[in-house]
């Protein structure tokens, strides 16, 4: 009880552990970096203002719920346009300019196809593939069953598999 979220060091620890996950989660949902950052700030402000009422182990779910409510309360949702950083090279023997062009073009088509997925499937797919979360972790974060996560995941894959490197 003594080291609650109201303690500065505990609050900072929660921020350090959860803020990036939360930012990514909101980015996958709304597709807008600036707004995702705002959601994170606002969610942490709410946690701070309610710190006496939120036990440490409930802080994560409080944050995700708060950010989610903020998102749902927005009147207008923009069209999602996600962009990712390429941090590794796709393994390939061919490095010709044509190949690199094709790669870049494929990345853009894939980003668009992912952006166009239904929100639930998109979030689950990206939390798994980009944030490397297990289905179990995703289920706990979203408050749904693991079965539901698997279902969304396979639906996302079924929708994406039509995207081919060849146009």
């Amino acid at each position: 009880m003594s080291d609650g979220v109201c303690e500065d060091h505990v609050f900072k620890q929660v921020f350090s552990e959860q803020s990036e996950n939360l930012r990514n989660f909101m980015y996958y949902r709304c597709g807008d970096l600036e707004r995702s950052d705002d959601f994170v700030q606002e969610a942490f402000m709410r946690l701070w203002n309610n710190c006496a009422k939120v036990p440490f182990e409930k802080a994560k779910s409080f944050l995700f719920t708060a950010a989610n409510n903020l998102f749902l309360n927005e009147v207008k949702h923009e069209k999602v346009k996600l962009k990712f950083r390429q941090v590794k090279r796709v393994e390939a023997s061919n490095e010709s300019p044509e190949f690199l062009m094709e790669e870049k073009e494929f990345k853009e088509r894939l980003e668009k196809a992912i952006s166009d997925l239904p929100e639930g499937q998109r979030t689950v797919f990206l939390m798994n593939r980009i944030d490397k979360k297990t289905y179990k972790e995703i289920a706990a974060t979203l408050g749904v069953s693991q079965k539901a996560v698997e279902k969304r995941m396979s639906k996302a894959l079924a929708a994406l598999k039509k995207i081919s490197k060849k146009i």
Partner: protein
Amino acid sequence: MPIDDEKKETLLARWLSGEITPEEKALLEQDPDFDNLKGIIETTDTWAPPAYDKDAAFAKLKRRQENEKPVPQAKVRRLGWARYAVAAMLVVAFGIFVFRMQGDDPLQYETNFAQNQELDLPDGSSVDLNHASSFEFVEKGGKRLAKLSGEAFFDVEKGNTFSVETPNGTVTVLGTSFNVYARDNHLEVACYSGKVRVESQGRQAQDITKGLVAVLTANEIHVKRFGVAQGKSWDATVTRLEGVPLKRVIEEMELRFGLEIDASGVNTDRGFSGSFLHKDIETAARMVFDPMNLDYSIEGKTLTLSDKN
């Protein structure tokens, strides 16, 4: 052998989580789209989310915390202490205005559904506040005054008179531990050590000692021995109840889990002795209603009770 779509979808999910068997993988590879899918996953595996500057984000949050002052409750309370300290210094300096300043600044606490709060009072006493309760404390004229609505367990330091005012009566002590239950028109005080006095308008005051409980009835304060051997009957994880009517158990469960219990179809005056865990409503319902031979169904925020056939 062709596989149906549903089976294929399950396999895809298991392929990505690495739980797939070689035989199942062979099945997937028959799918003409599987090559595309492999290419897609190989590509997304080289991606990372947009860069994130955690330190900058935290600095920004800190600035907002400084600027927006609806500081959290616990902080307000701590500021309250700072003012006490100032008041104490003023005693030395002027020796006058002290009582008024202290009297103006009671400590206030409130708990919500499903929430307990342990409080340390300035006189060294501690109070464990149960769910959905409000509590106030102030030291005034050499007396310690607390106000309670709800339920709390008190462990009082020896010293000046300590009294707990509730909407239905007052409990006065001299250093002891006791539990006060004061909701609606109930008042129930259980004494665990020392001696407490329970008073309520129109009834004769009662002193109770260790192991006794005082219960407010229509025209008196009834004193009896309580069953639970030692210690308080609730904490953050469990509520124990002994020989209480079922409706009291139901009320406690509603406050603990923040839901409504529809007991219109059953007799709620039957006695109950037992406990329920605070883990989740399903566990609690099983612990209470199964032994009472009652059926229950939970839908949304409502639990409905019915007699077992």
